[in-house]
């Protein structure tokens, strides 16, 4: 049976179609999930895609966090369902306190859209097991509030417990603390990633096909369980 990966559409989600395409490209079935439904339709994993949910008004992710679908997602994530938040999805996961810390205004104070190199730091999550530790990949970063920020204690813990999933290799593009591009929760099933792997699944339309690894990883993970 093909693995079913849900992709939530919030009002203002933009990269939902791209995330669904990436899931299909990796061999999975993409299941559209609607923000207003309290229903995950029995999917094996969930992606919160990029975009500007609710216009990113107030704070990125602050309003989407209260969407009805989140009342289903939060307990499922705590129970171990693989969840990947990309960009705005990462912001929503932080606002929902599924991940620690917050994403703040880029240090350059401008929206940044460019190809970036990432160093994979953790391959122990269901979304990253296909990568090699220390592997460098090229994906797309596009965000105005992408600087990861957390208190010193949290930052130290993230480092010490191997919860940093990826860091920017080379120049820090947005002032993210410790060059953090992505993190996971203690259990590893919930991953937040500021750059966009779904825009790097084909060298024709993206900088590389490196991003496919995230989607292939979760299919593998779901098959094993």
């Amino acid at each position, binding site marked *: 049976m093909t693995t079913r990966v849900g992709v939530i559409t919030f009002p203002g989600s933009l990269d939902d179609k791209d995330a669904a395409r990436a899931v299909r490209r990796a061999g999975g079935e993409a299941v559209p999930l609607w923000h207003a439904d309290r229903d995950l339709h029995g999917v094996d994993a969930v992606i919160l895609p990029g975009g500007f949910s609710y216009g990113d008004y*107030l*704070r990125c992710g*602050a*309003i989407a966090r*209260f969407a009805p679908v989140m009342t289903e997602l939060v307990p499922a994530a705590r129970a171990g369902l693989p969840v990947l938040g990309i960009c705005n999805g990462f912001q929503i996961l*932080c*606002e929902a306190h599924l991940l*620690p*810390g*917050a994403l*703040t*205004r*880029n*240090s*350059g*104070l401008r929206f940044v859209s460019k190809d970036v190199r990432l160093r994979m730091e953790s391959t122990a999550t269901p979304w990253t097991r296909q990568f090699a530790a220390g592997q460098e990949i090229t994906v797309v970063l596009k965000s105005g509030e992408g*600087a990861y*920020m*957390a*208190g010193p204690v949290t930052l130290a813990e993230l480092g010490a417990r191997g919860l940093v999933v990826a860091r920017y290799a080379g120049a820090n593009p947005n*002032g993210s603390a410790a060059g953090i591009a992505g993190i996971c929760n203690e259990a590893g099933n919930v991953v937040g990633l500021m750059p966009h792997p779904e825009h790097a699944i084909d060298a024709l339309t993206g900088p590389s096909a490196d991003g496919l690894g995230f989607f292939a990883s979760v299919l593998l993970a779901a098959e094993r369980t």
Partner: protein
Amino acid sequence: MARVVVDVMLKPEIHDPQGEAIASACRRLGFGQILGVRQGKRFELEIGGSADDAVMARIAELAAELLANPVIEEFEIRAP
């Protein structure tokens, strides 16, 4: 009808690049006395009915849950 103001500021230990950029701009404009700037948000809420204690308590909840992100921000509520 009442008006309630909620001020939200980044916690002092959180880096505020925007505030810093403004402070340097002020200095470039010749206002050397500026030691620092912090930029926050101000919300003006218009409330049906009066801003009694119950309403203010509810607004405090709203501020903590929605208007501010307690991980990086702190807030203050006033009924001016």
